[in-house]
């Protein structure tokens, strides 16, 4: 990594430097301009939808939207989003608190175990629940989506708890607050942005998910979009429905922004940032172990158990699995996910920095635009990029590059959120000090801002890679003809009812996705250093 950075730097230095005044002006414009470019790229799906809707017949739109059926589907989706988001918030913050602020033995292994749920694709989890239990419908969808998404709240909350100043909670305690009220008044405001950013990702995922709600036979709004494509072959109607979904996504983004509020910075002096004294759980620790074990059993045990059962069901007539194919699929899955994470990072950096450092309309608009991809079903984003690619860059159509770009657009919010919240954590005062000590703006970025924010940004990149590995609908549409990933092979085998042959692919996918999931926990657990100490 280090040598690559040097190579890149050398390459840059080789070009002649522009006069410094021009450079300063350019420097000031580079950020907003690149943020606007990145946001426009992220808005491709929306532009596509507007083009499609513009072609629609007005009365057909009204007919399609104004009926009891759509209302029911919408209420179903809103109910599921609210239920899963609330459950993830409560469960995620509780787990984070247990793992970051108590003396619970084995916190590190528990962190690893509770993060591994991220490696399980929600459609595999749903399949596991269906194969082994009788849970269906709302509760089935609720369980699967909650269990798969809790780490999205747990991880950023732990990171925020590690960075948060515990002294103010101690002060609140000495002033006579109960532990609960002290947490709510002193600590919660400090971790709220991180926790809510996680909840937003969960909510958008639930909004756009089709695979697991379809398996659970819960008719959410994405069902209506699928019907428009599948039964009516009506792209226009599908676009109209997708606009409704996008609007719901924008409402969620706006709601999160209101609830997030300003980042609370308490106690910025080094002296105040002492290691917090862990809360002694006493006998309660058995309850904590039990609770964590139940969550782990439900989120990992059930899907893995179902897969193991199908592995054991293999007979001679079952579809054969070639190890070579499995390895090739794993390799292309990793390669594409890394490329997708790179694309997401490139788009996310300007948007995230702008959102973290400037409270302007432009910052708000670019950040909101970046969240669109996550609110839309993969098939809509996939088709929009088919449209974009054929009209703008036909050379790249059905190439790995367009697919990587699609991952970047789809999962951009995960990277933007990470970039924004990591940079928000860097106290602007530090940058000012570095400036007064004679550093150039670029020097401040590399020596101060990026250095402190990098672990958080890296976590976002890992999260994108992890999600890209599990992505299916856009991959099916955009992959180069003949290229297989673990997810597409899994789809191919399960649609042919070859469950026994699909099981190894699902297990390898979980194993491969576990790598970034584990790295994520390392990033989080490594957050012990305080920003000041890294200087």
């Amino acid at each position, binding site marked *: 990594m280090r040598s690559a*950075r040097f190579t890149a730097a050398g390459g840059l230095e080789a070009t002649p430097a522009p006069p410094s005044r021009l450079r300063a002006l350019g420097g000031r414009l580079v950020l907003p301009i690149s943020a606007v470019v990145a946001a426009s790229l992220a808005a491709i799906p929306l532009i596509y939808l507007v083009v499609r809707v513009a072609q629609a017949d007005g009365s057909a739109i009204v007919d399609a939207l104004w009926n009891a059926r759509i209302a029911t589907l919408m209420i179903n989706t809103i109910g599921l989003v609210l239920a899963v988001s609330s459950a993830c918030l409560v469960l995620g913050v509780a787990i984070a608190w247990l793992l970051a602020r108590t003396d619970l033995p084995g916190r590190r292994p528990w962190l690893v175990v509770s993060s591994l749920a991220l490696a399980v694709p929600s459609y595999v989890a749903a399949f596991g629940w269906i194969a082994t239990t009788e849970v269906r419908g709302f509760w089935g969808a609720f369980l699967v989506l909650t269990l798969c998404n809790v780490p999205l709240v747990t991880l950023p909350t732990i990171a925020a708890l590690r960075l948060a100043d515990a002294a103010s909670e101690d002060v609140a305690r000495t002033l006579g607050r109960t532990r609960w009220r002290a947490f709510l008044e002193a600590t919660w405001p400090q971790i709220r942005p991180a926790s809510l950013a996680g909840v937003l990702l969960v909510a958008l995922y639930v909004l756009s998910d089709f695979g697991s709600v379809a398996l659970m036979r819960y008719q959410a709004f994405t069902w209506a979009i699928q019907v428009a494509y599948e039964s009516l072959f009506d*792209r226009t109607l599908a676009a109209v429905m997708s606009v409704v979904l996008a609007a719901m996504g924008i409402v969620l983004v706006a709601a999160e922004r209101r609830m997030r509020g300003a980042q609370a910075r308490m106690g910025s002096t080094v002296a105040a940032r002492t290691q917090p004294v862990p809360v002694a759980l006493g006998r309660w620790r058995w309850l904590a172990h039990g609770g964590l074990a139940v969550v782990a059993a439900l989120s990992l045990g059930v899907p893995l158990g179902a897969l193991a059962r199908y592995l054991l069901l293999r007979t001679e007539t079952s579809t054969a699995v070639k190890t070579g194919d499995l390895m090739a699929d794993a390799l292309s899955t990793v390669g594409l996910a890394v490329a997708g994470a790179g694309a997401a*990072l490139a788009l996310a950096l300007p948007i995230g920095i702008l959102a973290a450092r400037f409270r302007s309309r432009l910052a708000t608009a670019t950040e909101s635009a970046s969240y669109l991809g996550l609110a839309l079903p993969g098939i809509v984003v996939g088709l929009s990029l088919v449209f974009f690619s054929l009209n703008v860059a036909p050379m790249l159509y059905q190439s790995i590059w367009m697919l990587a770009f699609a991952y970047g657009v789809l999962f951009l919010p995960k990277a933007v959120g990470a970039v924004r919240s990591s940079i928000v954590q860097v106290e602007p005062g530090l940058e000012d000090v570095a400036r007064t000590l004679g550093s150039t703006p670029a020097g401040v970025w590399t020596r101060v801002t*990026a250095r402190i924010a990098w672990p958080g940004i890296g976590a976002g990149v890992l999260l994108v890679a992890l999600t890209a590995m599990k992505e299916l609908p856009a991959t099916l549409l955009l992959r180069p003809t003949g290229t297989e990933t673990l997810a*597409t092979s899994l789809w*191919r085998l399960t649609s042919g009812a070859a469950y026994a042959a699909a099981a190894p692919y699902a297990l390898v996918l979980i194993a491969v996705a576990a790598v970034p999931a584990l790295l994520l926990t390392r990033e989080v657990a490594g957050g012990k250093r305080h920003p000041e100490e890294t200087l």
Partner: protein
Amino acid sequence: MTALRPAAVATVALAALTLSACSSADSDKTPTPSAASSSSGMTDGTFTLYAGRDQELIDPLIEQFESDTGVSVDVRYAGSTELAALLQEEGDATPADVFLAQDAGALGAVAKADMFATLSESITSTVPAGFTSTDGSWVGVTGRARVIAYDSEQLSADEVPTTVAALTDEKWSSQVGIAPTNASFQSFVTALRVLEGEDAARAWLEDMKAGDVQIYAKNSPILEAANAGEITLGLINHYYWYRMAAEVGAENMRAQLAFPEPGDAGSIVNVTGVGLLKGAADDADALQFIEYLVSEAAQQYFVDNTYEYPLIDGVSAPEGLPALETLTNPELDLSDLDSLGETTELLVDVGLL
């Protein structure tokens, strides 16, 4: 300087991608969009196929075709409906030469977008009318019968209803599984409308809904539900059972199949088919593949491996299945089943879609 870190990441990504691209490049070459249209009237030894059918089932057939003819096929697999949507999105720029689909609806959608070239009489005449398009835009390849899957632990074969009308009986309340989004189910509803009339079809759907009919996304979960005893009866296509039996062993199958009585809307036969994209109208390789699909060799392959009904003369149906003729309803012309729009409207109206 801001660009340094992304540049580093991009370098790593590039390296990783190049690696993975190399690993998969031996089996395929990415076709350029223009490759398809460049070969007017000639053979360039290759063409691109969009296949909306299972890869496990189609791959061996394509390998056979490749070794027989020396033509190499670039296959893109996805769901039939997704590919139909993709083709509509791509329009004339599509890299595809041939579209192989699992149902007539997906082929009809592409035909309606005027993207298919008309097939010659010599191809379309191999398949009996009613199992192929009326205008030569695509040709039928195999037939798939609608059947009732039942849980053999709860029911004996003679207790299974022989008509779909009997399914609305109160004793099957919350016991029946259907897949309203599935194209084959919708064809069945269309047949019901054509055979029994609009009002009867609506009444049947409303009664089923009132009887708490269980909604599934596809055929296979219905079969799994019946196999697990979750539901007693389910409306599916016949070959799902044979495939699942091949995977887990026929003796392990709890679900069994029953064929509704001939003439009942519940016993219609749907078709899979193939069409030639306009840009490939003169592509001899693509045409050769379509001819191959309606040849004896390919039809026999489908019988042996996918348990579907062959559609050409001289190839007989899989063992254990009632003959295609007994399922064919003289009162029903399958070309009448193109009123899919009205069917989906009815399903939406009733509240099943």
